[in-house]
């Protein structure tokens, strides 16, 4: 068996205290949320933090609450709670879809949204939908509070822009645009969801009064060193009608601009094919919801 190596375990009950301990230990301490990633890494010896700071005793970080027309999701909110949230399901379909296929129910009961982002993995399921929803990440650190646009959080595989001592406290999603729709799909190694993404794709479309696409957002997991925003594909959609022809063209562009690598999970070529197919399918899904939203009842 692999046993955990000894480490110092802190269980602060306030954010200030947590930040203070983390900052004092400089890079040596790691925050712990659900532990579904960190504890696995520690058992396998991939991570050996001498100090671990449990965030779960800190109150108030596990709420989904309305703010200024938008929604604030605390860093300690579990994926299962996102899946169960009516607000998320109705207003943020891409994020909700992603929460339904992240790992398995037992993992979802532990795993948090903050941990998913804090991990900095390009394969994480939360970042692409959050990019599509235009989320901001709230960060608290020794220098106080700051806000980071979600697409600026990730710097490389396993690397975020968080300084030592900084923790994610929440993500804030603006109000969803009217006449908009969003979607998420992914494919794991076993052919479905419930698995780390070989490729994950989120798309959001907003339709204008003329029925054309006023805004489009496309973000992908596992096709680049960080969650990848397919800006060229997005640009190709703006001002166009939401038609199969334009979706197919945009999907092709997204697959071209993606920068996948080959690894033990999949080849770069296969990832590129998947990127095209999944972007096309999420665009169709998103358009379906946007059209529903645009049709007066």
């Amino acid at each position, binding site marked *: 068996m692999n046993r955990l190596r000894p480490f110092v375990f802190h269980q602060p009950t306030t954010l200030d205290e947590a930040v203070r301990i983390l900052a004092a230990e400089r890079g040596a301490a790691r925050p712990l949320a659900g532990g579904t990633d960190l504890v696995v890494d520690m058992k396998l010896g991939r991570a050996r933090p001498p100090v671990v700071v449990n965030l779960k005793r800190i109150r108030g970080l596990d709420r989904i609450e309305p703010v200024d027309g938008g929604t604030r999701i605390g860093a300690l909110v579990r994926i299962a709670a996102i899946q169960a949230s009516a607000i998320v399901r109705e207003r943020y379909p891409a994020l909700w879809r992603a929460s339904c296929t992240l790992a398995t129910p037992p993992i979802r009961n532990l795993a948090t949204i903050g941990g998913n982002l804090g991990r900095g993995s390009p394969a994480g399921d939360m970042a692409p939908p959050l990019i599509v929803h235009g989320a901001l990440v709230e960060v608290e650190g020794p220098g106080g509070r700051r806000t980071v646009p979600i697409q600026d959080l990730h710097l490389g595989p396993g690397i975020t822009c968080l300084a030592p001592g900084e923790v994610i406290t929440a993500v804030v999603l603006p109000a969803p645009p009217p006449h908009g729709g969003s979607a998420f799909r992914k494919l794991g190694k*076993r052919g479905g969801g*419930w698995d780390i993404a070989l490729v994950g794709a989120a798309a959001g479309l907003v339709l204008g009064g003329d029925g054309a696409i006023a805004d489009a957002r496309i973000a992908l997991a596992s096709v680049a060193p960080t969650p990848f925003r397919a800006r060229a594909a997005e640009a190709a959609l703006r001002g166009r009608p939401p038609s199969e022809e334009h979706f197919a063209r945009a999907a092709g562009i997204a697959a071209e601009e993606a920068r996948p690598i080959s690894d*033990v999970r999949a080849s770069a070529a296969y990832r590129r094919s998947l990127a095209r197919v999944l972007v096309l399918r999420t665009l169709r899904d998103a358009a379906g919801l946007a059209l529903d939203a645009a049709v007066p009842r």
Partner: protein
Amino acid sequence: MTSVGRRVPRVDAVEKVTGSAVYGADLALPGMLHGAVLRSPHAHARIVAVDIARAERVPGVRAVATGRDVPFTFGASIRDQPFLAVDRVRFVGEPVVAVAADTELQAQAAVELVDVAYEGLPAVLDARSALAPDAPLVHPDLHAYPRGNHEIVEHSNVDTVARFRHGDLAAGFARADVVFEDEFSAQALSHAALETHVAVAAYHPASRGYTLWTSSDRPFQLRGELAAALGLASSQVRVVVGYVGGSFGGKNTLVAEAVAVALARQAPGRPVRVELSREEDLTASQARMPALVRLQTGVLRDGTLTARRAEFLWDGGAYASNAVGVAVRGPKAVFGPYRIPAVEYESRMVYTNRQPTGSYRGYGTTQAAWACESQMDMIARRLGIDPLEIRRRNGYEDGDAWINGQVMHGLNAREPLERVAAAIGWGTVDRAPAPHLRRGKGLATMIKETATPTSSNVVLKVEQDGRLVVLCAAPEIGAGQATVLSQMAADAVGVPLDAVSLPPADTATSPYNGPVASSRTTFHVGNAIRTAGAEIRRKALALAGDLLEVDPADLDLSEGVVVARGVGPRATLGELLARRGAEGCSLVAEARYSSAGSPLLAADPGLGSVSTIFWMISAQAAEIEVDTETGVIRVVRVAAAADVGRPVNPVGCEQQIEGGVVMGLSNALFEDLVLDGGRIANGTLADYKVATLQDVPEIVPIIVESDHPEAPFGAKGIGEPAAAATAPAIANALCDAVGVRITDLPLTPARVLAAIEAERAREVAAGGSTNRS
């Protein structure tokens, strides 16, 4: 009421569901130490120096063992494997130095302080390159190793050669209208049992003996292997096996055991426990043997098979382990349940620098049936014959001669195929729900013999309270052994099912048994139980006659109650034994069953050693849905049938069939131990994917019955044949759905998509040329 044939809940269900069942991993003994292992980072290297000084100084460390401390080798067929590497490592993950400490954490910390200097050697990483004339030798001393009497090629990497031939091949191929020649490959797999390899070993200095508590499917064979390795008499080694958390053919040699024994020698009197982590289990225990199979098959235009020649090249890994038998016997299944007048196989197994391999549910049939059943469909397609029809045309019937001329008896050869075809709606096409999806159906069938001859002994004992104890070395490996053996014992004696218990297998007290393998337990142990049960019954009735002053011939024993004919219940078995009072009494009977010498084994001259005491035939039909844009296969439905003789516990049979389908599906679609420069690249369950409940399709389990003259309560076996037909059934359904044939496992989405795209390109090219002409 009798117990055999009823749908009874497993006898171990309550214990297991409540967590009180004691598995190998649960064992804790007073004074027990914990072991950890330093493993080789190299596929092939010379060990130049080992420095254990720093490790020895770690607090809590009680013993450090290196290869030089344990100058022995083990191996069931070839004694080629050291307990810990001595001067050379032969695979990434091979145990090099082991540490025993008060806690596992201390042992692991100490292991990290061991320094080993290596000098890299060129490695052999696949079977084909192992055959190259200038290939490095994994075992330069192969010729000198003690081994059984199988054929090897000295001074090469070929550690097993086996051949079989029956009938006139030349005539068979000459008569054929078409000769098909195809090549198939099957990948390395992990058994991925829920319980990883685990053992506790203790050395007893006074007797120079060992006790080994372990999770194994074969206490007696393991004892033999260990005693032979250490140069001890077999009774100096005691092996105790409680519940086993899954074997699937993987818990049959010294894995955790070798390390535990090595450490126990260095820490006399202290039991040492070694448990493999999941990652060690995946990468450094025993895998299913990868195989390359080349099949040459002669066929008449109407689909009648005239001859088949098969060549197997097995990638045996760094040590022969128990893979030799797979290479020798496994290829028999490549001829399928088909009448083929002339058959031949040549099977070679080679050493390579990867983790050792061995048996895997079906003993080579998962690889052989993959080739056989894929090719059957390729033949059917080329000749324009329905895949069901070509199998019908060639299928065995009761009374046919098998590949060695042995007359086939006690099997229901036809029904499995017919039943699964009907259950899946063979011949009807289901519409796919979307344009990018395609549906398809596929069939496969297979045959499996059982290891013959083997024997089983049991001792039955009636306790003072009338309870029946079955002493036999047949561990419950999760497949339901304890339940069926209890059911048969209950009926053989005439006691209720809940009066029967099976204590853990213990070579010190249980009589000899063959392994819990080859789907042999129900049949062999059941036969011994039937005989011993009859004797217990006689003794019980004689005792009752004595005490009740009735002629035993007028008494009957049923559900633990002695009944006088025409009178009614007289006393329970427990009451009778109690009447012996202070004097005391127990009833004991022992019996042995061996398949040796059965008249059923008669075969053509010289081929008797190939005979089998029974055959199992199974068939599966799969319906799948293929996403033509991603290559993802979704299995919609699988109908699976197996000829079990008579089911002792129908629920248990269905569970075996269902479990077999899940396992077969998992290794058809997902599982693959990928080797990258000698290292397994996906050595965690995050990347070595095993099917989960989410991947499980609708399964229709079908029990098919037959009459076997020697079967106890009519029962044959079920464990192995349940798994082998799934992969070819899915591949055949894939071909039905999208017209592509994939001959390499697993059928990953990337592979499927590439094949679909290649086929599209071919069609476009062909279309283009048709247009031009």
